């Protein structure tokens, strides 16, 4: 008798249920429970009644938005140049831009601290913004480069032949066609920025903390239910952000290879 090969996915199916699905369900459960396990909304009420946490949350969103905008402004031209065969022929340059994505964020952050020390520049909000852009710029460039690179060049040529100026070709053809890449870039920068922890403290000498740190501190201090509620709030923000970007762009990015 032949064993159906689809049964080979069963061990991993069980693994996923136990280590991916169940933990997320548990976050939701813990968020709505008090220490004794009784149902409560107290954890969420606490969040809205703790000015410090609320402020950290709003500040994290502001920083994430600012970081996303800067990364887009710096990253789009770079992605465009890299994808343009007249301006860039070498695939090594592309790899050089993607590589930092894979270096430990902590090491990259400490390297930024080292750079500021070396230049005798004070750590603080400026360093925080620089460090965030430095950490996340590759995550913006990569998806945009991917869509631009796969784009059929004949559309732009057709527009040109039909009398469009280079500026018009860009705004009316290239830019709209690259939107899936832009959206997934926005997602890949915005979401992780809110959730980073440790990075902000190191770059600002503990003056500034972001929402990820709030979660980590609460979990660390045994406030599991409150920590779970905060994590659930972050998941909600992530859900809302991903709802804005269509799922097609995410798929396109994943099948485009990881590296």
């Amino acid at each position, binding site marked *: 008798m032949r064993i159906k090969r*689809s049964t080979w996915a069963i061990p991993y199916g069980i693994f996923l249920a136990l280590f991916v699905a169940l933990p997320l369900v548990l976050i939701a459960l813990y968020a709505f429970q008090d220490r004794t396990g009784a149902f409560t909304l107290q954890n969420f009420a606490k969040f809205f009644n703790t000015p410090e946490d609320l402020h950290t949350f709003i500040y994290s969103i502001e920083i994430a938005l600012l970081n996303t905008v800067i990364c887009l402004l710096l990253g789009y031209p770079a992605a465009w140049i890299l994808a343009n065969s007249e*301006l860039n022929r070498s695939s090594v340059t592309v790899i050089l831009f993607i590589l930092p994505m894979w270096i*430990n964020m902590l090491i990259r952050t400490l*390297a930024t601290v080292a750079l500021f020390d070396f230049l005798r520049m004070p750590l603080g909000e400026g360093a925080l913004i620089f460090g965030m852009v430095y950490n996340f710029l590759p995550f913006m460039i990569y998806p945009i480069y991917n869509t631009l690179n796969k784009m059929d060049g004949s559309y732009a040529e057709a527009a040109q032949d039909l009398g469009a100026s280079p500026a018009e070709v860009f705004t009316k053809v290239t830019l709209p066609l690259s939107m899936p890449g832009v959206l997934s870039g926005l997602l890949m920068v915005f979401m992780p920025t809110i959730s980073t922890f440790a990075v902000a403290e190191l770059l600002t000498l503990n003056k500034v903390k972001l929402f990820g740190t709030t979660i980590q501190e609460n979990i660390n201090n045994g406030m599991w239910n409150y920590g779970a509620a905060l994590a659930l709030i972050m998941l909600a923000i992530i859900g809302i952000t991903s709802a804005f970007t269509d799922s097609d762009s995410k798929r396109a990015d994943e099948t485009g290879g990881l590296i």
Partner: protein
Amino acid sequence: MKKFFARAYIWLLLILLYAPIVIIAIFSFTEAKVLGNWTGFSLKLYGNLLSGGVSSSLVKAIGNTLSIGVIAAVLSTLLGSIAAIGIFNMKGRMRKAITFLNDVPMLNPDIITGVSLFILFVALGVTQGYVTVVLAHVTFCTPYVVLSVMPKLRQMNPNTYEAALDLGATPWQALRKVIIPQIRPGMISGLILSFTLSIDDFAVTLFTKGNQGLDTLSTYIYADARKGGLTPELRPLMTIIFLVVLALLLIINLRSSRNHRKQQA
């Protein structure tokens, strides 16, 4: 002219991206305690690092990072490759569900993965330590193995497996002699990728390492940096890590671009 500006812009960004790590690399060749002071060329920090002239907890952390990386990579590769064969032969709703769950750890921010696993281990009453860190790493590495094995399965002729069975091979022999040789490049890419992800991880490890004093390199560096001022020996160490990761990624990239060319030829 346009070309000049484009090139200049690209190089400016690259310099910005690499300046911090280059500075660490340069100052790994001097003895000064504080980064930014150049006290002459010296290999002393590298010597200290290699001869074990550093704190024993750092040596332990390096050992843990490497052993966890190897174990997690091997387990993820086995689990992910078998899963990929299964998923590839699945249809309909089950396939959708398992593919969706496979995507979750890749899309979730590290901190959510970390917190959710932490709560899982607390709820199950498991003491957190080496084993939980390995399990956590397998959780976020395996999806990448599945993703790198899948394309190889798609390229395979589905009839070869059936042919092997018809010719009298047991399913086990067919797996070993027909399927595995064809998906091996994907498995190797997945293995290297998993190892890289594992040794690079910080957030998930921090949440699942428990309080028994287990440290990997990332959590050690984190604790060290919070105490204020980095141990000077971490500079050569970061430089070495950077070079190792660089080498591993170049290997993966060259492999995949070579395969591309093979397919096109």
